[in-house]
């Protein structure tokens, strides 16, 4: 239960959602788009999230699609992670997503909420970073399609009033060989110590990480090191480790030294899987 009150809206169209946001913003209500609403409830309960106008996107049809269109797999941002896993149209996404939270919670957490959430793990974005996916963004300026890797820098960079409605992924990445590994401090549900997702395309390995730094990322420098076939596997991994962005997380899940140790082993597993 939240200690604050807010207006609750269920727009049916993209335009209606943007209009509601702008109107609430003009009235100083700190509007928030929501889809699964789990972060609003869990962070709101401890005063880390606040709004006076929640605009719930889940009835907007464009956000509930999951289909192949002209060589692209289009996935709506309102879909719950469970729905995406049940359909299993993008196996790397299924694999990564099915390790987020737990099965019941994934029946409420949405793709859009995970990618745009304040909680910084955002693990569902990893497959899309690897697959150079396109994101469909809606806002006061209308509908725009942008390469995810251009507007994802630690988080999805959205302008005021914008929201994510779809992610589109080129079919050739959907069927590329992949591996996804989640290491936790303990147990088999919950936040990662480190999650790595990797796929191989055009003979090159791509890697993206969550839990290593206080943001998910894909690093071209790490990938260049891992794909340098003039070096031994060990040397490739060492040079990739030198390119890990900072800061490396150092928290109750694990120290930064321990994370680097685990990362080294994970990279061995990743390269081994594609040999």
């Amino acid at each position, binding site marked *: 239960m939240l200690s604050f*009150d*807010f207006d609750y809206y269920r727009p049916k169209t993209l335009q209606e959602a943007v209009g509601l946001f702008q109107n609430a913003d003009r009235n100083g209500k700190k509007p928030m788009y929501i889809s699964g609403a789990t972060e609003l409830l869990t962070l709101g309960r401890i005063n880390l999230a606040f709004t006076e106008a*929640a605009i719930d996107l889940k009835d907007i049809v464009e956000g509930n699609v999951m289909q192949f269109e002209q060589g692209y797999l289009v996935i709506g941002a309102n879909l719950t992670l*469970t729905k995406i896993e049940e359909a299993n149209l993008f196996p790397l996404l299924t694999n990564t997503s099915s390790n987020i939270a737990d099965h019941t919670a994934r*029946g409420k957490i949405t793709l859009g909420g995970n990618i745009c959430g304040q909680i910084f793990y955002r693990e569902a974005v990893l497959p899309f970073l690897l697959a150079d996916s396109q994101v469909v963004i809606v806002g006061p300026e209308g509908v725009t399609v942008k390469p995810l890797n251009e507007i994802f820098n630690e988080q999805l960079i959205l302008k005021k009033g914008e929201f994510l409605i779809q992610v589109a992924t080129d079919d050739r990445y959907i069927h590329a060989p992949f591996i996804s590994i989640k290491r936790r401090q303990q147990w088999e549900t919950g936040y990662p110590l480190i999650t790595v997702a990797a796929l191989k395309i055009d003979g090159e390995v791509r890697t993206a990480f969550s839990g290593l730094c206080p943001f998910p990322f894909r690093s071209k420098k790490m990938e260049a090191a891992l794909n340098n076939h003039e070096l031994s596997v060990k040397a490739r991994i060492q040079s990739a480790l030198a390119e890990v962005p900072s800061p490396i997380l150092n928290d109750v899940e694990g120290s930064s030294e321990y994370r680097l140790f685990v990362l080294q082993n994970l990279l061995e597993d990743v390269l081994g899987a594609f040999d």
Partner: protein
Amino acid sequence: MKLHTINLNINDQVRTVTVRTGDTLLYTIREKLGLTGAKPGCLNGDCGACTINVDGWPMKSCLMMAVEGQGKQIKTIEGLGNTLIQQAFVEHFAFQCGYCTPGFIMNCHSLILKKPDADDSTIKEWLESNICRCTSYIEIETAVKSALEKNKHHSN
């Protein structure tokens, strides 16, 4: 205070209730509708004690606002009547203090409904959503497997 009067379809009955937008479904069903089977634990989506069914799927009712429940078919433990999974929990002593039991049963009930042929890894994946502080895990596993087995015979 922002109050909304809404209709919730709970246990095959339409219940009219006045809620704040910030009220969770857990709070509403317990405090406003007197259905105290779903238990408050972590209130953070971690423990599963508050699990109910929404449109047949398991749902942590602390992760859902009451206003989101409109138009959904909601089932709480009070809405089950001596189902196979309830019988199996009794037969296999799948509880000690019992606090986690309604949540586990509602999760297992959905599992039997949605995945009647669940294999071991599916059972594990679904049941990992709930925590039992008394560690009745082995008995719970035995109970769910026996209910799945009986369900197969019933539906054949």
